[in-house]
C-alpha cells in the first residue's frame, strides 16, 4: 500500500486529487479507529503516535485529520521511508528521538517568498522561485497551522493590488469604448493572475478554505475583491453598463461592434453575479424603450408587410445576440419584450392596416410570416382569425349582395365564390398552418355571408350546376367536372335555404332531361349522389324519381314502337313520349292548344296503348314541353327545323297558305297570346328567319302579318330555332320561389306542432329557439310568430291564460 501510494504522489495535480480522496474518509473514520486509517498513519504523523493506536494518539489523529498539514508531510516522510526500505529488507519505523522544529523565522521568510511571487504575478514579472517550491511552501505553512494567517495575508496583498487598479477607471478622459476595453483587459488580467495565485495557493484553497465556512475560496475571494473595489463603484458600474448598452444599441442600429468584448464583459458581470441586477434590468428597459419607439415609428412609416419583415429581422437579431453574448437567462424576458413592443402593442393596427390588403393581394409569404409572428403573442391568433373572418365576410358580401338585382352580376357570383374559396383555402393551408380554428372560422364566415342574401345564392348555384351539366359544355374533362362539383357542394353546404336550391335544380334538371341536353348521365348521377350524401334521401327522392321516369319512358317507347309497327301507322310520323310522374317534376301550368289532327290521332294511339298497360292512370299532355323536327322545302333546298311544339304548330299552318295574320294564327292554334307573340318573334325576328313579318320590326304587335320565307338559306341542314325565353324564366323564377315559401310554411307548422306535442308547455322564447334549431332553412322570428298565431287560431295550441308568453299544446 504505502509504496504504491508514493509512486502516485509525484504530480501536483494528481496529488491534489488523491489527497482530496483521502482526507474525506479520514475525517469520518478516524474517530472510529478503523484499519484504513492505521495503515497510513505511521509514516505521516509525528513519531510519538506512530507506534501504536493509543488513546491519546487518537486525539492527535483527529487533529491532523482536521488540519490540512498532513498532506505535505506525507510526501516527505514517505520518501524517507522509501530510501530506508531500499537498504533494509524489513521496514522498521522507529520513533524519532526529537521533534523537528521549524527555524525561528520560518513563517516570516516563507511568506516573504510567497509575497514576492504574488507581487511578481501582479506586476507581471517572472517569479524567482519555482512554482513547486512555492507550492511546497504553502503546503508547509498550512501544515503548521498557519493557514488562517496565510489567507488573511494573501487577501490583503490582493486587495492592495486591486485597489491600486481601481483608480484608472475613474479617469474622465476615457472614451466609452476605451473604458470598456480597459475594463475587459483588467478583468482578463485579474482572472489570469487569480488563476496563477490559486495554483500556488492551491493547498490552502483545498484544505483551509474548504474546511472553514466563513471564508470564500481564493477564486471567489478574487471576484469579491474585484467586485467590491472596482465594479461596485457607482461611477465605474454606470460607465460599464452604460458602455455596454451603448455598444448594443449601436449594434442594433446596424453597426458592427466588438462582440468578443461584449461577451467577455457580460461574462464578467455574470461571474461577479451582478449580471441580473446591474445589467439585465437596464438592458431590458433600454430594449423596451428602443423597440417601443421603433414600433411606433415604423408602424407609421411602413406598410405592414415591410413592417413584419422588419420585426422578423429584429427577432432573429435578438436571438443571435443571445447566442453570441447575452446570458441565456435573458432569453425569455428579451424575446418577450421585443414581441410585446413590436407585435402585441400594434396587434390591432397591424391587422386593421395590413391584413385585408395582404389577403386581397394573396401575399402568401407575408401572411405566413404574420401568422408566425402573431402566434408568438397572447391573443395574437385570436385577433388574427377574428380579423380574417371579418375579411371573408366583407369580401364575400360584395360577391353576394346585389342590391340592383343585376342579373349580369349574379351570373358571375358562383365563379367568384369558387375562386374566393380556393384562395382562402390555399391561404389557410400554406400560411395558417391548416389551423383548425381558422378552418372553422372560415366556414362560419362563408355561411354567414352567403346567407346574407336570401335564396339568390342557392338559385345561382343551382343554375351554375345546370350550366356545367348541360350538353355543349366541353370545357372540362370528366375529372375536372367531378372536382368542380365537389367544390360546388362545399358552397352548397353553407347555404341555409337548401330547399330553394332543390327547387331550381329540379327545374333545370327537368329541362335537361326532357330536352335531352344532359351532358353525361354519369355526371348527373354523381351530382345526385353528392346531394344525397349531403342532405339525405328525402332531399333527393324526387330527383331520383325523375331519372326513373326517364328510364321507364325509354322502355315504354320501345314497346310502343313495336306496337305501332304491328298496327298500321297512319303516317310516317315518329312520336316520342316521356311519361312524368306528377309530384316528382316541377309543376307546369297545363295549356290547351289546337293540335293538328295527325298529332291528336297519334296521342290517342299512345293513350290507348298506355292505358292498356297501366289502367287507371291519368295522362295529361303538356304541349309546352314538346318539341318537333319539321321537314321544310325552301327554294334553296330541303331543311330540317328543330322547333318547339308551339313553333311547329305555327309553322304547320303555312302548309296551307303563304300568309297569315297574328290573329289568324292565334285563332287556329289557340296558343296563349303572350306565348304566341314570343313564338312568332323567334320564327320571324330571330337568327333563323323562316318567316317574314310585315311590317318589319323586332317586336310582334297585334295586326302583324307573317309570310313564309321561301328564300330562306342556311349553311346547316338541320337548324335549331330557339324559343325566346327571357320573360318566362323570370315568371318561372317567381313561381319557384313562391312555391318554396309555401312549402316552408307547412314545414314550420309541422315543426311547431311536433315540438309542442313533445313539450306540452313552452315559453315563447324556448319554442322559437327550438324551431330555429329544427328548421333547416332561414326564417325570421316574425314568420314563426305568424305561424304560431295561426296555430293558436286553429286550436292546435293555446296561449296561457295568465302568462301571455307561454303556450300549451292542445291534444
Amino acid at each position: 500500500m504505502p509504496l504504491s501510494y508514493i509512486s502516485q504522489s509525484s504530480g501536483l495535480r494528481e496529488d491534489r486529487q488523491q489527497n482530496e480522496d483521502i482526507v474525506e474518509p479520514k475525517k469520518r473514520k478516524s474517530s472510529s479507529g478503523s484499519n484504513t486509517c492505521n495503515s497510513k498513519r505511521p509514516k505521516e504523523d509525528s513519531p510519538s503516535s506512530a507506534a501504536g493506536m493509543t488513546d491519546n494518539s487518537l486525539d492527535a489523529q483527529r487533529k491532523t485529520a482536521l488540519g490540512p498539514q498532513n498532506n505535505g508531510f506525507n510526501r516527505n516522510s514517505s520518501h524517507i521511508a522509501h530510501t530506508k526500505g531500499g537498504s533494509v529488507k524489513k521496514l522498521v519505523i522507529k520513533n524519532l528521538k526529537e521533534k523537528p522544529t521549524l527555524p525561528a523565522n520560518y513563517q516570516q521568510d516563507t511568506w516573504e517568498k510567497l509575497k514576492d511571487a504574488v507581487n511578481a504575478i501582479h506586476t507581471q514579472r517572472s517569479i524567482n522561485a519555482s512554482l513547486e517550491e512555492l507550492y511546497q511552501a504553502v503546503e508547509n505553512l498550512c501544515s503548521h497551522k498557519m493557514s488562517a494567517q496565510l489567507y488573511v495575508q494573501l487577501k490583503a496583498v490582493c486587495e492592495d493590488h486591486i485597489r491600486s487598479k481601481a483608480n484608472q477607471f475613474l479617469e474622465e478622459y476615457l472614451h466609452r469604448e476605451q473604458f470598456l476595453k480597459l475594463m475587459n483587459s483588467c478583468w482578463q488580467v485579474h482572472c489570469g493572475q487569480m488563476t496563477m495565485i490559486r495554483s500556488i495557493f492551491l493547498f490552502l484553497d483545498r484544505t483551509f478554505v474548504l474546511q472553514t465556512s466563513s471564508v470564500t475560496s481564493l477564486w471567489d475571494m478574487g471576484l469579491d475583491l474585484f467586485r467590491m473595489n472596482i465594479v461596485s463603484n457607482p461611477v465605474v458600474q454606470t460607465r460599464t453598463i452604460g458602455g455596454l448598452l451603448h455598444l448594443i444599441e449601436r449594434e442594433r442600429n446596424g453597426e458592427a461592434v466588438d462582440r468578443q468584448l461584449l461577451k467577455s464583459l457580460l461574462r464578467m458581470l455574470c461571474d461577479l453575479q451582478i449580471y441580473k441586477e446591474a445589467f439585465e434590468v437596464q438592458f431590458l428597459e433600454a430594449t423596451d424603450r428602443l423597440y417601443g419607439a421603433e414600433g411606433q415609428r415604423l408602424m407609421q412609416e411602413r406598410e405592414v408587410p415591410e413592417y413584419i419583415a422588419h420585426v422578423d429581422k429584429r427577432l432573429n437579431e435578438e436571438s443571435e445576440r443571445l447566442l453570441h453574448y447575452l446570458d441565456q437567462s435573458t432569453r425569455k424576458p428579451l424575446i418577450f419584450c421585443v414581441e410585446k413592443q413590436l407585435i402585441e402593442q400594434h396587434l390591432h393596427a397591424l391587422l386593421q392596416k395590413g391584413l385585408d390588403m395582404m389577403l386581397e393581394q394573396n401575399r402568401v409569404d407575408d401572411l405566413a410570416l404574420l401568422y408566425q409572428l402573431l402566434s408568438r403573442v397572447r391573443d395574437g391568433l385570436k385577433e388574427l382569425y377574428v380579423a380574417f373572418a371579418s375579411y371573408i365576410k366583407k369580401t364575400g358580401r360584395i360577391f353576394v349582395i346585389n342590391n340592383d338585382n343585376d342579373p349580369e352580376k349574379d351570373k358571375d357570383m358562383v365563379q367568384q365564390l369558387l375562386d374566393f374559396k380556393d384562395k382562402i383555402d390555399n391561404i389557410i393551408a400554406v400560411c395558417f398552418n391548416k389551423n383548425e380554428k381558422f378552418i372553422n372560422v372560415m366556414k362560419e364566415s362563408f355561411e354567414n355571408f352567403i346567407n346574407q342574401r336570401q335564396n339568390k345564392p342557392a338559385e345561382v348555384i343551382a343554375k351554375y350546376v345546370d350550366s356545367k351539366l348541360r350538353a355543349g359544355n366541353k370545357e372540362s374533362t370528366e375529372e375536372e367536372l367531378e372536382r368542380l362539383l365537389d367544390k360546388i357542394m362545399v358552397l352548397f353546404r353553407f347555404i341555409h335555404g337548401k330547399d330553394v336550391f332543390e327547387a331550381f335544380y329540379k327545374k333545370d334538371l327537368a329541362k335537361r332531361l326532357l330536352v335531352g341536353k344532359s351532358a353525361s348521365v354519369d355526371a348527373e348521377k354523381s351530382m345526385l349522389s353528392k346531394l344525397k350524401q349531403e342532405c339525405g334521401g328525402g332531399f333527393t327522392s324526387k330527383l331520383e324519381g325523375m331519372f326513373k321516369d326517364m328510364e321507364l319512358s325509354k322502355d315504354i317507347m320501345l314497346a310502343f314502337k313495336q306496337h305501332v309497327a304491328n298496327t298500321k301507322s297512319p303516317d310516317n310520323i315518329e312520336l316520342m313520349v316521356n311519361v312524368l310522374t306528377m309530384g316528382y317534376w316541377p309543376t307546369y301550368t297545363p295549356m290547351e292548344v289546337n293540335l293538328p289532327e295527325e298529332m291528336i290521332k297519334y296521342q290517342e294511339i299512345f293513350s290507348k296503348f298506355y292505358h292498356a298497360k297501366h289502367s287507371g292512370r291519368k295522362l295529361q299532355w303538356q304541349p309546352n314541353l314538346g318539341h318537333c323536327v319539321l321537314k321544310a322545302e325552301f327554294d334553296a333546298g330541303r331543311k330540317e327545323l328543330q322547333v318547339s311544339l308551339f313553333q311547329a304548330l305555327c309553322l304547320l299552318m303555312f302548309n296551307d297558305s303563304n300568309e297569315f295574320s297574328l290573329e289568324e294564327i292565334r285563332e287556329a292554334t289557340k296558343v296563349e297570346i303572350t306565348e304566341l307573340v314570343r313564338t312568332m318573334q323567334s320564327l320571324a325576328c330571330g337568327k333563323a328567319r323562316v318567316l317574314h313579318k310585315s311590317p318589319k320590326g323586332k317586336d310582334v304587335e297585334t295586326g302583324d302579318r307573317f309570310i313564309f320565307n321561301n328564300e330562306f338559306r342556311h349553311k346547316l341542314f338541320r337548324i335549331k330555332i330557339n324559343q325566346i325565353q327571357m320573360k318566362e324564366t323570370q315568371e318561372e323564377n317567381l313561381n319557384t320561389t313562391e312555391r318554396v315559401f309555401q312549402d316552408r310554411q307547412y314545414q314550420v307548422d309541422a315543426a311547431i306542432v311536433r315540438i309542442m306535442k313533445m313539450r306540452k308547455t313552452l315559453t315563447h322564447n324556448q319554442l322559437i329557439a327550438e324551431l330555429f334549431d329544427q328548421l333547416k332553412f332561414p326564417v325570421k322570428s316574425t314568420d314563426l310568430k305568424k305561424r304560431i298565431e295561426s296555430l293558436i287560431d286553429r286550436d292546435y295550441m293555446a296561449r296561457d291564460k295568465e302568462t301571455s308568453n307561454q303556450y300549451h299544446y292542445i291534444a
Partner: protein
Amino acid sequence: MPPRKKRSSTAENEVDKPKKRLCSKKSADSSFSVKRCTTWFKTYCSAENDGSIGPDGMEKFCKDLGVEPENIVMLVLAYRMEAKHMGYFTLNEWLKGMTYLQCDSIEKLNRKFDVLNASLSDSVTFRNVYRFAFEFSLENGIRSLDKTTAIELMNLLLDGRWSLSKEFMQFLEQSKFKGMNKDQWYNVYEFSHHILPDLSNYDEDGAWPVLLDEFVEWHRQRSNKTSETGVDC
C-alpha cells in the same frame, strides 16, 4: 214573512213605490227573491225568442234602466250573467246574474250601477270583462271579430283606460288586418296593461302577436315623423 209582502207589492207597481221603501225599509228591501226576479224577467221576454229576452226586450230594458245599450255597464251586466250572445238574455243567464247582484227589480239594479262601474277598476274583473266581451260579441260560427266591431268594442272598453287606444284603433283602421282573433284581442289588453305609453319596454322578440309588433312599428314611425316635422317647423 216580509218577503211575501214585498213580492205582492213589487209585482203590482215596480216603478212607483221603491223610493218609499228605500227610505223606510232598507233591510227588508235588500233581500232577494228568485220569484220576483223571474217575474221581472218575464216583463221583457217575448215568445218569438223562445222565452229569452230578445233585441226588442233588450231595448226596453235599457230604456227602463235609463242607459244606452252601448254603455259599458250593459257589458258588465252581461258578463255577470255569463250571457252567450249579444242582444239576448236567457232566463238562466238572467237569474245567474241577478242572483249574483242580489237584484230583483229595476231600482235595485239601478242602484247597483255604481258598484258595477266601480268593479271595472279592479284589474282582474276588468280583464275578465274584456275577455268576455270578445266571445260575447262574436257572431255565430265566426272565430274572429270583424274590424268595425272590434274597433267599436275596443273603444267601449279601452277608451280612457289606455292612453294609446286611439292610436291603436287608428292603426287597426288602416292596417291590412281584416279583424281580430281571440289571441290578438286578449293580447291587446295585456299590451295595454304591461307596456308603457312610450313603448320603451316593448320587446320585439317577445311573444306578442304580429299585430302588435306592427302596431309598435307603425307607432314609432309615426312619432318619428311627427318629431321630425316638428323640428322642421
